[in-house]
Structure formats: C-alpha cells, structure tokens
C-alpha cells in the first residue's frame, strides 16, 4: 500500500526547488499568452570519448546554439580539469563551463593536499555528487576522460548525477549519430591514429546529421605524461568564398544637382 504525503514537513536543510516549479508554471502561462522567454545558450552538441591502447581520445564539435540560432561558431567544449584529466560538456553552456571550472579548482586544491596527480575517479565523484545535489537543474552532461596512476579511464556523467564507466561514450543531441559510428568500428586497444580517426568520424557523423551540432572538430588526446589539445583538428565546415560583389564604385550614380541648406542649431 503506497502511503502518500507526509503530514509534517519540518525544515530539513539543503536546497528547496519550490521556485523552480513556480517558474515552470509561470513559463507555461507566458507561453499560453503567445510570448516566449529568452532561450538559454545550449551546446546542442556532439561529444564523445574512446579509450585506446595508450590513453583516451576526447572529441567535440564547436557549435553553440541559442534556440535555433547559432550563437558561437567556434566554441571550445573540451574543458581542462587537471593536467591529466579533461572533460567535454554538453547541455547548457554556462552550466558545463562553471561546473567544470569549480571541480577543476577543487581538484587542484585536493591534489596539492594529497601531493599526487589527481585521479579521474576523483573528478567523477566530485562531479556526480555536485550534480546530484542540484537534482538535474544544472543541465550539464559530461564526458570525462583522463589517464592516471590506475590507467586510462572514461566516464559519462548525466545531469541528474548518474555516471557510467565505459570504453566508449557519446553525449549530446548528436550522440546517436556518433554512437552508431562507435558501435560499428570500435575495437579494444586501438592505436592512436585509428582512435583519432574513429573519434573524428563519430563527431563528423554528429555534425552532418544533427542540427544542433556543427562547425569544426576538436580533439584532445591524453596519454601518460602528455596531452595533445588539437583545436581545431579538422575544419569540417569551411566558410564559403563570396563570388559576387555588390559594392558600387564612386561615380556610378552621377550627382547632377546640388542643394545646400544651412541649418542653425541653438546650443
């Protein structure tokens, strides 16, 4: 038998998300009247990561959207967490940017305290605990990858705070296109060139088949002791060259009559 409501709601500390529900109601009311509230900038996105023989390769597209408009044609979605750990972010751009910066800062302090290079699992724990605390209201879907003393690791982290540790992951609106490429061509213990090609192709699949992803392909290759941040790794969408010119030379339209008016402006 399912009991329903608890009668006594004593103050339990922590966050209250009551206003979020109120805002949702207000938003629905506004929409009914025909207006729309400003859209948050999202990174529509295709992000992915793969574990290969010597480390991990992370990849991302570079389009940031505000509703149906491209806000940034070349934004950077691979964020620094620590010298050996990087994180791709999909979802609300502000959320991914801030979340990764906060965890990067805390991880640096932690690393100084332990005297060791930080572990990917630590970054994962910090991120999942923070996102769970905010119950999904921080719209950050992340692909976290890096190499530490335990080896190369790759995690996918969802906005509600669940994580999966896998050999290959994709996130974002273009994730289905990218996952199709991975499921077809992934093999364990690939060489670096093959892994980079695979990630490049997966992101390309997202760029060309998903409206929310576009522009260039950024890659980040992390191995033990070295990080290659390749931005851009592949310019998949070059801006076209204008073939026509609408500029008119001086003297194209002759000025036959001159009228001069003197105007006085009291100062």
């Amino acid at each position, binding site marked *: 038998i399912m009991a329903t409501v608890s009668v006594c709601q004593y103050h339990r500390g922590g966050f209250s998300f009551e206003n979020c529900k109120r805002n949702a109601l207000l938003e629905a009311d506004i929409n009914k009247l025909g207006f729309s509230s400003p859209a948050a900038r999202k990174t529509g996105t295709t992000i992915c990561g793969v574990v290969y023989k010597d480390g991990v390769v992370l990849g991302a597209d570079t389009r940031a959207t505000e509703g149906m408009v491209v806000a940034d044609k070349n934004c950077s979605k691979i964020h620094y967490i620590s010298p050996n750990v990087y994180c791709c972010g999909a979802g609300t751009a502000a959320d991914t940017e801030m979340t990764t910066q906060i965890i990067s800062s805390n991880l640096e302090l932690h690393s100084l305290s332990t005297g060791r290079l930080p572990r990917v699992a630590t970054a994962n724990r910090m991120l999942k605990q923070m996102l769970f605390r905010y*119950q*999904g209201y921080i*719209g950050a879907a992340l692909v976290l990858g890096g190499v530490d003393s335990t080896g190369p690791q790759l995690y996918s982290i969802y906005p509600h705070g669940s994580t999966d540790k896998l050999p290959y992951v994709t996130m974002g609106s273009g994730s289905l296109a990218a996952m199709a490429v991975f499921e077809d061509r992934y093999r364990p213990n690939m060489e670096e060139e093959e892994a980079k090609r695979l990630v490049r192709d997966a992101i390309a699949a997202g760029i060309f088949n998903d409206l929310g992803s576009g522009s260039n392909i950024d890659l980040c290759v992390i191995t033990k002791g070295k990080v290659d941040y390749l931005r851009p790794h592949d310019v998949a969408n070059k801006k076209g060259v204008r073939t026509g010119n609408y500029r008119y030379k001086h003297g194209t339209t002759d000025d036959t009559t001159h009228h001069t008016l003197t105007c006085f402006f009291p100062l």
Partner: protein
Amino acid sequence: MHFTVVFSGLSGVCDRLRQARVRTPAAGSFSNVVKLKMAAVLQFPASVSTFNNYNDLYPDWTQTEVSTGTSIMAVEFEGGVVIGADSRTTTGAYIANRVTDKLTPIHERIFCCRSGSAADTQAIADAVTYQLGFHSIELDEAPLVQTAASLFRDMCYRYREELMAGIIVAGWDPRRGGQVYTVPVGGMMTRQPVSVGGSGSSYIYGYVDSNYRAGMSKEECLKFTAEALTLAMERDGSSGGVVRLAVISEQGVERQVILGNQLPKFSTV
C-alpha cells in the same frame, strides 16, 4: 550525508508503481488553487524548456532522467546467495548504457541490486557504502547483511518523496549465512528467501513462484536466476543486454556474465 532536495518530476522511468503515486507540495505554502495546478504540473518534467523542440525519439539531456528500467533478482541458498541483474540503462527510448553493472558491492560480502533512477540508486549506494565501511571499522568485524539493509531502508524511507529507488540487498555474514532483504520504493524492508525487482519483475512473478523450491543448490539457483531474468528481459522493453550473476558465500564473491547469444532459450512465440 544529506539528500535534502525537493523531488523533481521524472519522465521516462518504466517502473509501473510510479504512475500510481500522488504527489502534493509542502503543506501550507500555497493556496489550494495553486496546489491543484501544481499537482498537475508535477507530472511533467520540472525543467520545462521552451527550447526543446527535438523529436521524442532521442533524449534531451536536461529533461529525461536516466533510469535503470531493470530486472533484478536474488535467491538464498544453503551457504550463500545468488544475485542477478540485466544490463540496460535507458534515457527515455534510448539505451544509454547496454552493459551496466547493477550489482554494486557495498562491502566485501554484501551486494545490492539497483533498480529505479540511476542517479538516486548510485548516490544511495555510495552513501551506504561509506556508512557501512565506517561502521565495520568501528566494530572491527564484518558487518551484518541486516545492517546494510537497515541503512538502505533508513535512507529510502526518510527521503521517500524525493527518491525513486528499488533495491535488493543480499550477502553473506558469519552470523546468519546467506540473506536477501528487499527494500522497494517507499522504504519498506523485509527478508525473503527469493526476491525479484524492477520493471521486468512483473512478468516473472508466476515463473518464480512456481519454480522456486527451498533447499536448492548453488548451481540450481544460478540456473533458476538466469532463466528468470532471461524471461523478464524477453518481455520487458526496459530490460536487456547481458545477464550479470554473482554468488556470495563464505569463500567470497564469484562473478559471471552470460552474453546475449548464450542466454537460455525458450520456445519462440
């Protein structure tokens, strides 16, 4: 560790029990009119967005919560327990992880099977692992399975309005041998010789009730669990992938995986 957050509406979770729940906001904070409106709105995802025009077929990351649709099961036998789970995690209609490990170690000889919201169950399991580890160090002996189950129950009951978690706790301890405790949605805790859970469990109650016998051996329990989970995975859309099994006994934990093509075969309908 506190989980003091207000429940955010979930969509795409396949646990049937959820649809029967009635949620109302905190008493006394709103007028009755608003309360009624709130009750209706709470059925929808709380983070309503004007910018989500995407097709329902693929997930919008800020809205759909990741759910371990699931079929999980645990059986006691003389000398230990056998636990099993499928390996599918879904976000709406998309399978986010097809090789999930839903058998989570809480202590050396105590495991839990997770069903419901992936985020909630992972967070609860992490918290209980910490609490039980601390308790075990204080006691300087192996913790009881009942203790682990009680910790799960306390958390699941206290935060029942905010959580969506159905958990089966199973393990071996020196005092009472192999034990299975079930902590379903809502926070009840009870010991059972065999327990099934998750969205796929509805389809196999009949099979389990008719095929379970007390006093089965370890191999018989493994076969029983594998077959039951296969049947559940066959019929439940939110369950699938591989079958993960584990045997917990005094000797320790033996894990195995049964891949898709190796699953027991039943007559194809």
